[in-house]
């Protein structure tokens, strides 16, 4: 299935901003992070289609997953 992956802040360093991947149907958020060598401890926020997601959440065809380190402001 096709999944769009978006990376933010320092996750972009040495990786990419946005990229489409062809992944097997059972892929979870955690597996996407692992594939990109992003440690779970570094992950701040995971959004799937703009909604907060758990790491174990399986993705579906056409999903957009956005990965952020812990960031803040205000």
């Amino acid at each position, binding site marked *: 299935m096709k999944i769009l992956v*978006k990376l*933010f*802040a*320092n996750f*972009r360093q040495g990786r990419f*901003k946005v990229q489409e991947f062809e992944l097997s149907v059972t892929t979870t958020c955690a597996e996407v992070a692992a594939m990109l060598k992003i440690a779970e401890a570094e992950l*701040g*926020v995971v*959004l799937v289609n*703009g*909604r*907060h997601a758990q790491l174990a959440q399986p993705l579906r065809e056409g999903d957009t997953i*956005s990965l*952020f*380190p*812990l*960031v*803040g*402001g*205000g």
Partner: protein
Amino acid sequence: MDKIFRVNMTDLTSSVEEVPANWAGLGGRALTSTIVAEEVVPTCHPLGPNNKLVFAPGLLSGTPAANSGRMSCGAKSPLTGTIKESNAGGTSAQQFAKMGIKALIIEGQPKNDKFYSLHLTVDGVKIAEESELIGKGNFAVIEALEAKHDKKIGVITIGQAGEAKMAAANISVKDPDSKIRSHGRGGMGAVMGSKKIKYITIDSTGAGAITIADPEKFKVAARTFAKALLDHPVAGEGLPTYGTNVLVNILNEAGGLPTRNFTYGQFKAHDNISGETMHDTIVERGGKTKHGCHAGCIIQCSQVYNDKDGKYVTSGFEYETIWGLGANCCIETLDDIAEADNIMDDIGVDSIETAVMFGVAMEAGILPFGDGKGVIRLLKEEIGKVTPLGRILGGGAGSVGKTYGVTRVPVVKNQGIPAYDPRSVKGIGITYATSTMGADHTAGYTIATNILNVGGFVDPLQKEGQVELSRNLQIATAAVDSTGMCIFIAFPALDIPECLPALIDMINARFGIELTGDDVTDLGKNILKTERGFNLAAGFTNKDDRLPEFFNVDPVPPHNVVWDFTDEEIDEFWNF
């Protein structure tokens, strides 16, 4: 011993007073709000002689505690009609604290039309007539006063907007680089203008160090506290690298970035104005990605933004400003927004109120959406020159909405709603509705928990848990605003267990007292109740704790959600 400096602008006298016993344990917001509640008639006209303008450094300001150099400024607000506290960095809080000035209270009003200046020394206040700098912008005022005194002189000043008593006018405070930090929200600049004070200079010659009751205990606590700040990924790494503007992309992804005057939750040009792009631009042009608004800030969320030729344009370039002129006004270039930010600092208008106002002005057809150059022109030629149109714009979002018959006017208690859509980030909607200050994100920053996974997680799109979240954060924030601490210490405080106890230990060591965590929570509760008491006496009711109607009926994409709290659910907030 700390003193109260009091200035009466009606008869142009000043006095140095003992600190009343019930004010002794207070600082920052706790003190300004207590003084305003005790001494200001709630129904008075905010721009009349019965309002008072109060400045107070925080309880820990002037000590070596990290990030403790914030000053609170309070009065009845001409924008909202409520009590107001607005805090800012800059050099003056630390000067006040070291000079033993617990608070400066400015009351009365000159009967003539002249402007004045105040000069503060350890001995008291000198009032002088001022004519030379009237009509000048804040940067020129700071430059002239440094030339007249020296580089170390502290300056608190208003621009043309404050002189003209516009409700969006702010008060500018000189920072360590002779640039500007602002008491932004609520029109405090108009109150200073109504007192006919163009600027305040602070000469701290002869000020000693702060006495600390238990220096050893203080040192240990201060070290633990600083370590917690630096260990936390947000305070130690994210903020100094990307500034607060890192939020553009995350709010955009989450569908909570108010766009085109709160019509959409996502902005197509988000990447142009994002923290990531800003970071790369700053590095490329030889600016600074990190910078502190006062000496002793170890988080350093501020930055120095240069133009293409490497020349300084602005600093303290915040997410709210960039969101407001960017997504909300659909301006797609950071350079235009940076130039506008500099002009807002110079003429002295709140960059949040003004950015929200421009969204409404664009909807009204005064200028097209996306017109960055138009914003710059209106700031300089209309607001800066105090024309009739400039006065309407300088009155804020509500003023423009009323004048032009716009129905989508994002304000609560007439104060512009900042950078998070309350329909898709529901916790912050409760804060906007119930804050004693009018719409104010910092009053109870639920974004931490709704969006950023700091202090746990409460789903931003559900109603459950939002009232309690906002209440807890508003109570904690009121207490933190009294310490002189920058609000960003909340990120580590929410996540790192040693952080808050270390903060309380520092207060205890400073004053030789034994506050507990519960005492601090009680302080927060008391502040909120004091402020609400003032507002109720000024004529506000629970019916004012509501969001504008359009949030109930216009769904915001991409989640297509509306604001769906009932009145009873919102009113639960005050059940404590």
